[in-house]
């Protein structure tokens, strides 16, 4: 089958080969030792037509069981306005490279500038980069920033109440980057300030990472954290759910120096884990330690406002082996996603989404307790996600619910199950989940 992506006719090929001084395509690989030319058959199907490709994917899609999502744990099923997908499909955005040629990339550069502005406003920070791969890697980069800023100290502290995947990724990066990781204990479902103070007392800590909303869905009270961390000469980073920052106290208000997290909660499709986008923002004094792309405003020779990639002296292609981050891209199109989402929602829309999530989650929570088969593990304020102790084994409960079309009751630790409700879940859906739960317990 002819491939629609190859434009060359036989006559084109002949003329091009002539110019290149070759008789056949094989001649173009004359510099490759014969033994390295692959002569076997690839273990791939024959070329498919577009219809056959679509059919193949639809067949695989049908092997997945669609579930109504009542879990979060780092990926949240928020509503995405129809406009976003339409804007993202503009090929001028989608098929562009990193905006190196500023004169023909003002579209990308402007939305990144808007993204940076919005992230700063949500987090209460002075500057933000153009986005990171995802939340967990943004946390790892935040910790490497702390170590780079402190110069001599190599020890970081992470709260045991962070999402497990955030802890895993930070520990992996730390292992290879030569950072020593201490774990701040959790007490009664929140980061223990006693444990933090004790670990800080050695005076060897470069940075501390704590959650804004933790793995149990609890909103952490970080009163006194910044003073304790700064008093020990260290940097405080808060891992945040950006959607929640329309209503809950911001990293900036807690006195943090760095804010990081996953922008997925800004309406991004769950998409089996990606693409999402991480964000990373900081106070001005750490601006030159911020990794990744950063867009700044300037002007051209005629005085027209223009935007460029800036502060590039920080970056890997300049610093090479002296680099403290190897990031050379961002999740640009997903940053556009977040920017369009936040433009449409505004602070009122974001507040409404939080209110609906909060109200639905508290309704589900109270009804579950009322069944008598669940009890609170911690009595702490939560936003849209919570954990309960279940008298029914968690895996059995989760399986029964999945068979009925729900993803709910995710086992987080032995005996604990977690639930999450967003504005997308109607009262009817919640009541149906409750009806199913009552039949299985």
């Amino acid at each position, binding site marked *: 089958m002819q491939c629609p992506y190859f434009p060359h006719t036989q006559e084109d090929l002949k003329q091009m080969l002539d110019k290149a001084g070759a008789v056949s395509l094989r001649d173009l690989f004359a510099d490759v030792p014969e033994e390295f030319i692959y002569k076997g058959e690839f273990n791939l199907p024959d070329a498919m037509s577009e219809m056959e490709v679509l059919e193949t994917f639809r067949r695989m899609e049908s*092997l997945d069981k669609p579930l109504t999502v009542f879990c979060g744990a780092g990926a949240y099923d928020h509503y995405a306005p129809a406009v976003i997908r339409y804007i993202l499909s503009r090929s001028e955005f989608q098929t562009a490279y990193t905006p190196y040629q500023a004169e023909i990339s003002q579209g990308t550069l402007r939305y990144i500038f808007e993204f940076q502005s919005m992230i700063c406003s949500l987090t209460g920070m002075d500057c933000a980069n153009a986005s990171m791969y995802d939340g967990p890697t943004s946390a790892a980069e935040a910790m490497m920033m702390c170590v780079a800023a402190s110069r001599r100290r190599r020890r970081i502290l992470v709260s045991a109440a962070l999402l497990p995947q955030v802890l895993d990724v930070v520990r992996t990066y730390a292992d290879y980057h030569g950072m020593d990781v201490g774990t701040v204990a959790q007490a009664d479902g929140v980061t223990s300030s006693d444990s933090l103070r004790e670990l800080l007392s050695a005076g060897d800590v470069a940075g501390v990472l704590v959650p804004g909303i933790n793995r149990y869905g609890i909103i952490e009270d970080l009163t006194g954290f910044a003073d304790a961390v700064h008093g020990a000469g260290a940097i405080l980073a808060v891992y945040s759910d950006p959607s929640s920052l329309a209503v809950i106290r911001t990293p900036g208000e807690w006195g943090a120096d760095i804010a990081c997290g996953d922008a997925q909660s800004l309406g991004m499709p769950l998409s089996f884990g990606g693409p999402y986008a991480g964000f990373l923002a900081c106070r001005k004094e750490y601006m030159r330690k911020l990794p990744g792309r950063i867009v700044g405003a300037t002007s051209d020779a005629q005085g027209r406002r223009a935007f460029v990639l800036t502060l590039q002296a920080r970056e890997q292609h300049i610093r090479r082996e002296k680099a403290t981050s190897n990031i050379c891209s961002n999740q640009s199109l997903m940053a556009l996603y977040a920017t369009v989402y936040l433009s449409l929602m505004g602070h009122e829309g974001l507040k409404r989404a939080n209110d609906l999530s909060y109200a639905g989650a508290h309704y589900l929570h109270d009804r579950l307790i009322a069944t008598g088969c669940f009890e609170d593990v911690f009595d702490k304020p939560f936003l849209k996600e919570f954990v309960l102790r279940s008298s029914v084994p968690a895996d059995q409960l989760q399986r029964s619910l999945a068979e009925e079309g729900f993803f709910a009751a995710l086992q987080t630790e032995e005996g604990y199950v977690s639930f999450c409700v967003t504005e997308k879940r109607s009262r009817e859906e919640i009541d149906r989940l409750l009806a199913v739960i009552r039949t299985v317990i």
Partner: protein
Amino acid sequence: MKYYDKLIFELSSPGRCGYSLPENRWGTSTDGLPDRLRRKDAPVLPQVSEPDVVRHYTNLSQMNFGVDSGFYPLGSCTMKYNPKVNEEVASLPGFASLHPLQPEWTAQGALKLYYDLSRALSTLTGMAEFSLNQFAGAHGELTGLMIMRQYHRLRGDDRRTRVIVPDSAHGTNPASAAVCGLSVVQVRSLEDGTIDVEALKGLLDDTVAGIMMTNPNTLGLFETHVKEIAELVHGCGGLLYYDGANMNALLGQVRPGDMGFDIMHLNLHKTFSTPHGGGGPGAGPVGVVPALAHCLPYPRVIRRPDGRYALMTDKDSCGRISGFMGNFGVLLKAYAYILMLGKQNVRNVGPYAVLAANYIKESLKDCYKLPVKGLCKHEFVFDGLADTSSGVTTLDVAKRLLDYGFHAPTIYFPLLFHQSMMIEPTETESKETLDAFIGVMRKIVEEAKSDPELLRSAPHNTPVGRPDETAAATHPVLKYEDM
């Protein structure tokens, strides 16, 4: 392209609304949270209507240049056509709505796709196993080096802390090594840009973890001594890492696994046609030989004897490097591309890409300085204009190309030359497009003679002229509030 000056914040007016959500009829809200946990002032976000938003971002898109707009000969970036059926499969609701933590038995289709793509990449590269959890090429490099270190550590060989990187390598290579806690030893290139094997010999000992190579290298030249290099590095107990940035040259013809490489990454957004998205999301899968499979990051997707797919964590894994399973939506697109090509057409990707590069090189080498003569692979480097008397620089040529509706090549890289201009046309550009580009490049040579000022002040037909980068860096304005 027309100039449009607004930022979304400048369209904002209090009370305007662009969202549509149900009224809150629950009787409770976040106002019930304790005061100390609540934010004091609302965030400053735009208050705009839906039509405002659509028109604003449509206007912004019209100040952007993508592969769909025109030719993008950006060296080492493989700006090939991004097929539209890819977008169609990635937006199928059954994939878009899958939660990454939902039970494996409810996600068998997604897991099968992940597994099938990893098998397809294995046959195309000669690597035994792949992890697809990496978000980008640099993320793949970092993961690959973690695997390298983990392999040595598991053998109790803690002395191997040095990694050899050619001086012509992409900047991410040494940066990834540094982030991975390895010290970088630079090996120099010969005049033709290939690795100096004699110099390499002097660097090899039992402290070497491995070598990072790009083949073809950043000059677009095949490293003909790769077999000898592999024997030398393996002989001292080191491993070979293949930077897949330039894999498009070899796709369908030469497999890194057959050349002696142990670890590699691919850039799905280059070689496998997924869109670059203005800087991401991409994907940088990492493949390894059988002896390193246990070191791959977790979670891994395996096919069980009963034909079901499952997630697996190996106790020897180098660790978790991503929140979940990487950029799954990007993986779908790459797999659609592979199925469209099939086992026959995939053989032509490398040869057609190489043909296009050699065609441009031979058509322009009389008026641009070609520092390394002879056959190139998918890209090549000019060192500025052949006639330098006008003082016109590579930057001037690049900016003038924008006026003619072409994207510029990669400029001032590799660092081996002062006026580098790295050109990669890819296999999806027609001869007519290549001829038009060649014509404009020749016209620019004429302009350099007749009116060099025209080039020094280019571009003239773009929404903005050259921005003042020095001012941007000395007085950083990084958000709307600071304007």
